[in-house]
């Protein structure tokens, strides 16, 4: 009971000013995280600048739980690039490699075909029914950087929400009860 009692005591002994300071510092943490995320969105030009790899279709290059940094520029899409795309009727974006590109002479529009490095066939089976090619508007970004393992944190938290609540609760308590 020692630690819990101590924490409760420290909560009881809080003054109004102290509560306010702590609320502000908590707010600072949340807003700075938000600023970093939105800032990344601006810099990379991608709706989601960071994605977690969820499937093994790009193994051994990208494994489940790895993190990819995306960049969305005006540059044309070329074969070999690893793109993140959304297919109509599917919620989860897919990270695969471009294997075919046909770029129009007059409009500059592109037809793109993708494939996972670890998959046997191309992605036409994953596309919407009857869809043969991806167009520019399906592409959310292209992968430019890679960081291993870090994405496991989010995978664990989505699959076991209880761990998320425990973690948020513990962090919140830590912020409230900590004194400078």
């Amino acid at each position, binding site marked *: 009971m020692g630690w819990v009692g101590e924490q409760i005591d420290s909560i009881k002994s809080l003054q109004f000013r102290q509560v306010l300071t702590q609320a502000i510092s908590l707010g600072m943490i949340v807003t700075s995280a938000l600023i970093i995320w939105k800032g990344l969105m601006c810099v990379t030009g991608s709706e989601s600048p960071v994605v977690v790899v969820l499937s093994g279709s790009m193994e051994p290059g*990208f494994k489940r739980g790895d993190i990819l940094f995306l960049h969305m520029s005006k540059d044309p899409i070329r074969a070999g690039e690893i793109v993140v795309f959304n297919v109509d009727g599917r919620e989860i974006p897919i990270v695969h490699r471009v294997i*075919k590109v046909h770029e129009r002479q007059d409009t500059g529009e592109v037809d793109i075909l993708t494939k996972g490095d670890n998959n046997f066939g191309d992605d036409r089976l994953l596309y919407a029914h009857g869809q043969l090619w991806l167009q520019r508007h399906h592409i959310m970004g292209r992968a430019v950087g890679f960081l291993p393992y870090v994405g496991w944190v989010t995978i664990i938290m989505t699959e076991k929400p209880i761990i998320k609540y425990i973690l948020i609760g513990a962090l919140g308590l830590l912020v409230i009860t900590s004194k400078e």
Partner: protein
Amino acid sequence: MHSVMLRANALLTFSVTILALMCAMASLSDNFNSPSPTAQVQVLNIYRFQKKRNGDDEVSLTFNMSANLQSLFTWNTKQVFVFLAAEYETPKNALNQISLWDSILPSKEDAKFWIQTTNKYSFVDQGSNLQNKDFNLTLHWHVMPKTGKMFADKIAMTGFRLPETYR
């Protein structure tokens, strides 16, 4: 008890910072590598060349290729993804890139190779423009690091031409 938490927190923050710094330095060190890869491709036989039922031209060919990509590997390289693409221009399309063959090179020892094979992916045009068409065969590589920035480059090999008649 409080100080234990604070110390654990400080230790965690410090170790994560060091780890992030090491990852960043490993990625930056890749920039000092100036690779000099080489590749030669020879088209041996175009054993099928016809118009599909929907009107698109399709080509099947055998080729051999020798390449040395060993200089791409650094201590931060997990693997190199390498592929050979046919590239050409048609009245309809400013650029057509069609991957014919690809492979994953997991280590430096695998990066010097000679291969004779047929196209792994179908070589199909959008339309019927391939008769007597000049095309490039381009060897692309995509260096996938253990951590950090990915690199890509290519060697274009010119002077290939498809036959005038279907076969």
